[in-house]
């Protein structure tokens, strides 16, 4: 008998239960919504139905769904903390018995058996489900549930408007009912999908979670679907992600066809560092590239980065949870998980893809004026840092940055949300200024986030960014032709400091530039500021270790390092040694770059009030995001749209000449052949008996003749 609560023998099952917990509010909300809708349609005629409708809140959306989701996610967080502590303890005690440890913290079972039919040569294969907890999963799980809980709490305040009977959507010029329950339904479904993705021990289950988070992201970007821009952005995110998912599916298919299994452990053992015997080198590279393309789509790397800035159309808590802290990090996470499966060429691709992304996105963030867009491009850029780190073999540094980034980016987004909420949905930085005096908690928690992302010493971002840069320096010293892999991120680190301080100065210091916005601004309620404070503490201290001034001493980093795939640390041993050697130089240079960036931002925006020249609408290459959107518009959209319009027109009302060659024309042709044939055939039905007899006789004669000729 399978007992999911048998935590003593299988402590990993705590994670399974924790994954399934957010599914409970999803189901409850779905059932409640169904009952409520059924009751509403009958509430005019049936008194029982109207009482049920009243019980479920009537026309006013209930807050219950939000509290319910929060409680279940908090329970999940509690379980994950319990699991984290237990796992770290056991990974110490069972350090020399990895099998024992794995048996306690992972399980799997067949889900679908395929290919064992009679007469088939292939051995029977199965798609499995299972979970495997290691250092990375345990930490990510705690991070996702923890930050998720804070954002659920924050949303109680931020989405309060949605509990109103009628909501005026000024952007879409409509009035609609509040959609509070639906918001939490999507968020809970997202939490479940994301956790499923994290604990999965095989690529197929990852793919299922991958698609589920994708669809939740689609729902939530398009949450204000009455707005044209929101629904377009949702479509864009979904479609661009499909491109990446096609690559992921190709990678999975190659892995399954070659090895007959999708389990990470089995695959890693079969591939084992050098080229595996079962597949050619080209196929191996292709598999890695396929998996990586999936991660490129999900983590918004060049060339599939265009969806992330547009995804900011969703509510701000969604931007914080899905499009900054967790879902977009899934790509980085998957690269981390698939680390032993990649060929050397794939690592180089990952590094350069990250480099291009972090540089391009950082430059665009310099000129953006929408507070959320700045953060969105900064997210792209930071994800690029992580990818670059993974590409140069700095597994720990990349994933440490993933964890710390989740904290300070969630903090920055929630802070931005607090500003937007306080300023009555004003997102333009040029309309703000001086808000520090109106919303001090938001301003100073955000300052912590800004300092952390810029890489200020002793803030969490410093520990991870310092490790990334020293690894990049080590790699470029070891391979001189790849020197760009160090200088790119170094310059981008300076730009990061510049655009983050620019954002903070523009929003919170100086004199108010728009009197109306300033006079209406107020500090957000407690449910929103509490998550800000908690996240600020996390952004400050999450990566601390002893001694505090040593970036290598981060406790979180050490824990993560224990989970590093052993094979790869050998492959990159040389560049690691060099990284240790040049650690101080890299750290110093990074600090210098950040200082320069921050100082320049201060001289432009902080010291004196920004001039009108500096605040005018940005134009040119950067404001147009390096023309990526225009390129795709030109290369893919315009052609296919024109073709679609042409086909539609031909089908609908085009000239008959052209119509004959279309599918529609073919169908009409078949129909008209039958019609014309019928018109001629009906003439034989004359009603004259003699003619019928004549035909009958002729038929008889010809049949007899044929029989006599052909049948011997």
């Amino acid at each position, binding site marked *: 008998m399978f007992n999911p609560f048998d935590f003593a023998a299988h402590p990993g099952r705590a994670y399974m239960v924790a994954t399934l917990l957010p599914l409970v509010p999803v189901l409850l909300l779905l059932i409640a919504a169904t009952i409520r809708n059924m009751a509403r349609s009958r509430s005019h005629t049936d008194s029982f139905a109207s009482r049920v409708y009243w019980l479920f809140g009537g026309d006013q959306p209930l807050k219950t769904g939000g509290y319910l989701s929060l409680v279940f996610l908090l329970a999940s967080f509690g379980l994950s903390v319990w699991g984290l502590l237990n796992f770290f303890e056991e990974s110490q005690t069972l350090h020399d018995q990895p099998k024992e440890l794995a048996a306690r913290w992972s399980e799997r079972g067949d889900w679908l058996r395929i290919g064992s039919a009679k007469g088939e040569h292939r051995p029977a294969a199965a798609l499995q489900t299972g979970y495997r907890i290691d250092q990375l999963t345990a930490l990510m799980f705690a991070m996702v549930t923890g930050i998720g809980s804070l954002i659920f709490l924050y949303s109680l305040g931020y989405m309060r408007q949605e509990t109103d009977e009628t909501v005026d959507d000024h952007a879409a010029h409509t009035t609609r009912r509040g959609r509070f329950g639906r918001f939490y339904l999507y968020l809970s479904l997202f939490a479940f999908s994301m956790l499923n993705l994290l604990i999965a021990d095989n690529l197929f289950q990852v793919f299922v979670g991958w698609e589920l988070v994708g669809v939740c992201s689609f729902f939530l970007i398009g949450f204000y679907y009455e707005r044209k821009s929101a629904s377009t952005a949702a479509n864009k995110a979904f479609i661009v992600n499909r491109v990446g998912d096609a690559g992921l599916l190709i990678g999975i298919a190659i892995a399954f066809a070659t090895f007959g299994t999708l389990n990470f452990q089995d695959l890693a053992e079969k591939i084992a560092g050098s080229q595996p015997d079962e597949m050619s080198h080209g196929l191996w590279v292709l598999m890695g590239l396929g998996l990586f393309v999936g991660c490129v789509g999900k983590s918004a790397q060049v060339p599939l980065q265009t969806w992330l800035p547009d995804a900011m159309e969703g509510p701000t808590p969604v931007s914080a949870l899905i499009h900054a802290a967790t879902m977009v990090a899934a790509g980085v996470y998957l690269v981390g998980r698939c680390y032993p499966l990649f060929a050397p060429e794939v690592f180089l691709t990952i590094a350069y893809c990250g480099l291009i992304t972090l540089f391009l996105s950082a430059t665009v963030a310099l000129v953006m004026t929408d507070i959320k867009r700045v953060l969105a491009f900064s997210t792209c850029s930071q994800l690029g840092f992580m990818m670059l780190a993974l590409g140069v073999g700095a597994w720990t540094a990349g994933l440490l940055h993933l964890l710390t980034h989740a904290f300070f980016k969630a903090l920055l987004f929630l802070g931005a949300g607090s500003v937007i909420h306080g300023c009555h949905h004003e997102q333009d930085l040029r309309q703000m200024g001086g808000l520090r005096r109106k919303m001090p908690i938001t301003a100073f928690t955000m300052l912590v986030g800004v300092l952390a992302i810029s890489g200020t010493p002793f803030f969490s971002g410093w520990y991870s960014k310092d490790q990334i840069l020293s690894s990049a320096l080590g790699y470029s010293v070891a391979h001189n032709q790849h020197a760009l892999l160090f200088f790119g991120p170094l310059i981008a680190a300076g730009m990061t400091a510049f655009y983050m301080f620019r954002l903070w100065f523009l929003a919170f210091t100086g004199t108010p530039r728009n009197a109306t916005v300033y006079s209406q601004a107020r500090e957000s309620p407690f449910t929103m500021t509490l998550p800000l404070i908690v996240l600020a503490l996390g952004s400050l201290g999450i990566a601390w270790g002893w001694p505090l001034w040593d970036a290598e001493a981060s406790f979180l980093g050490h824990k993560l390092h224990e989970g590093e795939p052993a094979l790869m640390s050998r492959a990159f041993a040389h560049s690691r040694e060099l990284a240790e050697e040049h650690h101080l130089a890299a750290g110093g240079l990074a600090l210098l770059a950040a200082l320069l960036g921050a100082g320049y931002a201060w001289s432009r925006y902080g010291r004196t009030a920004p001039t009108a020249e500096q605040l005018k609408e940005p134009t040119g290459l950067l404001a147009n995001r390096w023309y990526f959107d225009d390129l795709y518009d030109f290369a893919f959209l315009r052609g296919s749209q024109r073709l679609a319009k042409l086909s539609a027109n031909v089908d609908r009302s085009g000239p008959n000449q052209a119509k004959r060659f279309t599918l529609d024309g073919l169908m009409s042709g078949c129909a008209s052949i039958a019609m014309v044939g019928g018109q001629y*055939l*009906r*003439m*034989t*039905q*004359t*009603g*004259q*008996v*003699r003619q019928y*007899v004549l035909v009958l*006789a002729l038929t008889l004669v010809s049949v007899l003749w044929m029989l006599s000729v052909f049948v011997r």
Partner: protein
Amino acid sequence: MADVGLVPFQILAAFLFACGVACFVTKRNAIGLLMGVELVLNAANLNLVAAARFVPGLRIEGQVFAVIVIVLAAAEAAVALAIFLNFYNNYATVDVDQANESKG
């Protein structure tokens, strides 16, 4: 009675059949048409009975078929007469050439 063999019966049946066909091809009167059909059916009956008598191996099958054909002919005549009666009621004629309302 001398055994005349199968052939004379077949000749007679063929003659009857030809008469029946000629009748329902030429007649325009519905009743005449029906008579022609009866002749054709009886030609077939004659063939069946004669075959049962003269073909070795057959014993009673021909007679059984003939009886069935007679029953069916009676039924067919009843239905056909009912149709013609209705036709006559509506059109005051039994000329089958007038019955061309449902032609294509």
